[in-house]
Structures are given as structure tokens and as C-alpha cells.
């Protein structure tokens, strides 16, 4: 589990702080998402559950999306600002990112529950809710500031986005450090098995 969370942390770090040399991205976000995808696959192998599986699909979707946008932007840097529809692509990206983060956090709550750490489970549940609210508010601000070209608000929203990503990374780091007691990991499987039907009915 720890290694999976560390890979997600590293991937999100690469996505958040990708280095640009002028117009050229040294490490395009696509590499960050590739690392995230590996991380989610590891999580899924160690602790299979529906949210992690969905998170895996979403990470792959973002990987594909960033791959396409990187290629397009490399050949035509103004492509996404030229059309009234395409300039909202950061919001679309944000929505998929939010869904991804939600699935990983929900899967992790199941994981924490399997470890019988009730306080931590409660804490992560609360943090997930707060994270979603802040993320949604930030995306709402971004959406309207793109519509009105409020460059100050766009910058503000980008900074808030970075802060939210750092928070997400901190949660990943915290989860990655959790010690799994062998006896608990046995009941782990039973627990997820019990959760599966409930998850499926919710879908």
C-alpha cells in the first residue's frame, strides 16, 4: 500500500510542479499521471475495491487527456485559448481530477476502516468532504473568471489549485505511512468483500 500511495504522491507532485523552460515543458504532466496510474494499480492490487478501480480508470482518462493536450499544445500553443469552448478545458480537466481524487480518498477511507482506525476514518471522511467543497468552489471561480477573462482570479484559482494538490499529497503521504498489521490485513479481504455489493448498488 505504502509504495502505491508514494507513487501517487510523486505523480501529483510532478503534475503540480512541472518545470517549464520557456514554452517547453521539461516534464509534461503526462509523465506525472503515468506515475499516478502505476500507483493506483498498486493500491488496487493490495486492496481491491470499487473506488480504487474507478480511480484507476479516471487516472488513465486524465493520462490520455494530458497526452492529447500536450501534443496539441506542442504544435499549436494557442489552440486552447483560440476558441470560446476550448478555453474552458482546464475546468473539464479539473472535474475529472476531482472525481479521481474523490475515488482515491473514498477507497482509502475503506482501507483505513479495514485497519479499524476509527478516528482516522472519521478524520479522512471529514477531510474528503472539505476537499470536495473547496475544489468545487475553486473550479466555479475558475469557470467564471475564464468567461470574464479576470486574469487576477485565474491566477488566484491556480494558486488555490496548487494548495489543494499539496493537501492531497499530504493525505497520500499520511496514508502511505500507515502500518499494516498482518492479522488485520487478513480481515481486510473479508471486509472489502462485504463492501463490494453495497458499492455496486450505489453506482
Amino acid at each position, binding site marked *: 500500500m505504502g509504495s502505491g500511495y508514494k507513487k501517487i504522491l510523486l505523480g501529483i507532485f510532478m503534475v503540480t510542479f512541472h518545470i517549464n523552460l520557456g514554452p517547453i515543458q521539461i516534464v509534461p504532466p503526462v509523465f506525472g499521471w503515468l506515475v499516478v496510474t502505476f500507483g493506483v494499480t498498486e493500491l488496487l492490487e493490495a486492496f481491491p475495491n470499487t473506488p480504487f478501480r474507478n480511480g484507476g480508470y479516471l487516472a488513465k482518462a486524465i493520462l490520455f487527456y494530458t497526452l492529447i493536450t500536450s501534443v496539441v499544445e506542442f504544435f499549436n500553443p*494557442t489552440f486552447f*485559448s*483560440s476558441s*470560446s*469552448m476550448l*478555453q*474552458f478545458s482546464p*475546468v*473539464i480537466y479539473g*472535474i475529472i481530477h*476531482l*472525481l479521481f481524487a*474523490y475515488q482515491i480518498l*473514498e477507497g482509502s*477511507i475503506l482501507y483505513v476502516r479495514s485497519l479499524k482506525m476509527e478516528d482516522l476514518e472519521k478524520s479522512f*471522511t471529514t477531510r*474528503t*468532504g472539505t476537499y*470536495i*467543497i473547496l*475544489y*468545487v468552489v475553486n*473550479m*466555479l471561480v475558475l*469557470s*467564471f473568471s*475564464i*468567461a*470574464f*477573462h*479576470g486574469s487576477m482570479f485565474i491566477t488566484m484559482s491556480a494558486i488555490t489549485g496548487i494548495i489543494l494538490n499539496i493537501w492531497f499529497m499530504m493525505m497520500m503521504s499520511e496514508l502511505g505511512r500507515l502500518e499494516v498489521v498482518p492479522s488485520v490485513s487478513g480481515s481486510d479481504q473479508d471486509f472489502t468483500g462485504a463492501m463490494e455489493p453495497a458499492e455496486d448498488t*450505489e453506482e
Partner: protein
Amino acid sequence: MQRNKIILKVGLSMLILSLLLSIGLVSYMRLDEPVFLYNFKESNILSQEGYYSKRNFDFTYITNLGDSRYVTAISFPGAEAVEFSVIDPSSYLSSGAQDRYGQYALRTVNVTVTDRDVTTSFDPIELRNGIVTLSNGETMEVDFGRVVLTNHGQNYPSVQFISSTSFGSSDQANRNTSTFKASEALTLISIESPLFNDLDSMLSLEINGVDLKDIEGMLFDKDDIITVTTAIAPTEQLNSTYTAYEVQPLLTWQDENGDSHTQILNNINYRPYRFQLSGIVKYLKERGVL
């Protein structure tokens, strides 16, 4: 967990709704083609030794932010006698040549009369509707308002220039005061401008406190101080505040010997400056382009 799912669902619905709203708003506010602000301008273009004549004027237009097209030429049917050259600074300055208001860009093109010597007299040339050519080859018909090119020769009366001040004030009027001293007895025969009717009450012009309509026939003794005060204050309507004005009234004087002299009053202008996104949207709606 259940609670978070509800938060997510509500959040996502709000996001999708705001996204649709934003996209709708952007498509609604998008302009099909650049919109030129109206102008009521007078420009004396006669070349005359010893006198400066302003041979250029500018037109301001509103377009979508990021519009890569720029103006390459403007022609006026019926005014083929005069040649113009047009410079749109956005052709060589990618972002510095425009003011940004929300998703609109305000750009100014400079038009210069290129005939090297407009020394022969001609009837005033009226420029109203022009054909604008854009850099992608598109052409569009534009109502520029009314620009009058005049060819007044100047033959100054014997006055001594003392001072000229100009300041903008909170009522949007651009006030100008010029002070002269009469070197001999002078009579003001007439004051004329083809744009007096267009500007009507927006223009205030006083000489020594006497209003424009009573000016003709004023007498000045030798050493009298002549103070000309002018201001252009557009009406509150956006259509008026977003219009550029410039008049160059021609004063005709008669001296003691009965000789007549002419003089042009310069610097009587107003250029729109208080732009706001809400004002621009309202203006574009009034113009019927949104």
C-alpha cells in the same frame, strides 16, 4: 461516506451548470466582427507653410480578446481624392497595443493622409461609411460616424499668444482655455465648423464669457485679452460617451484696415476613456451587435 457522495453530486451539478452558463455567456458576448466606435471629427489637412496641420486621426474598435486579425486598409467610397495609410499597432505588438476589458480588446488604428502636398483647395471631404480590410482578407462596411477633412488656409490676425491650458474634469468634459492679446483692434466676423450641429449642446465655446451663438460681431480693442474657453461634454448615454469628438472651428477676423484673417481653434476634442466591461456590453447591445 454517504455525505461525501452527496457533496460530490451537488458540487458536480453546480460545476456543470456554471460551465454551461459560462460557455453560453462567452458565446453570447462573442462578436462576429470588430465594432468601430463612432467619431465626429474635423481635421484640417491643408499643407501650408508656417502652420502645422494635423494630418492624422484615429479610429477605435472593439473586438474579441485574442482576435488575431488586424486592420490593413480603410477606404472611403466617394473620397478617392485623398489617400490614406492605416497602421493598426496590433499588427506588430501582440498584446501591448490593446486595452483589455473582460473578453474584449479595445484597439486603435491610426489613419494618416498620405498625399504629400495637399496644397490645392478642395471642398471639404466627408468620410462616413468606409470599407475596412482585415489582415485575413475579409472586408466589412463600417459606419464611422462623420469625419470631415477641411482645407482652411490660415492667415493669423495680429494677436499675441499668451497661454493655453487644458484639463479633464470629473464631468468628463475636456476643458481648454487659450488666451491671446489683441495687437490691434479686431472684429470677430464669424465662427464656423461643419460639426457644430452634430455636437449641439455637448460643445460649449465661450470667448470672454460670451456664448458661441452670440460671438459673431464681437469687438476687441488693442491690448484687449481674448480668452477662448472650450469644452466637449458628451451626454450620459453610452452611445455618446463612447464616441470620439474633435472640432476645429474656423474664426474669421477683420482688422482696422478691413483685411480679413482666419485662425483655427485647435485642441477641442473628447476621446472616450472610461471603459468598463459592463458599459461595453451595454453599448454593444445598444448597437445591436449582441
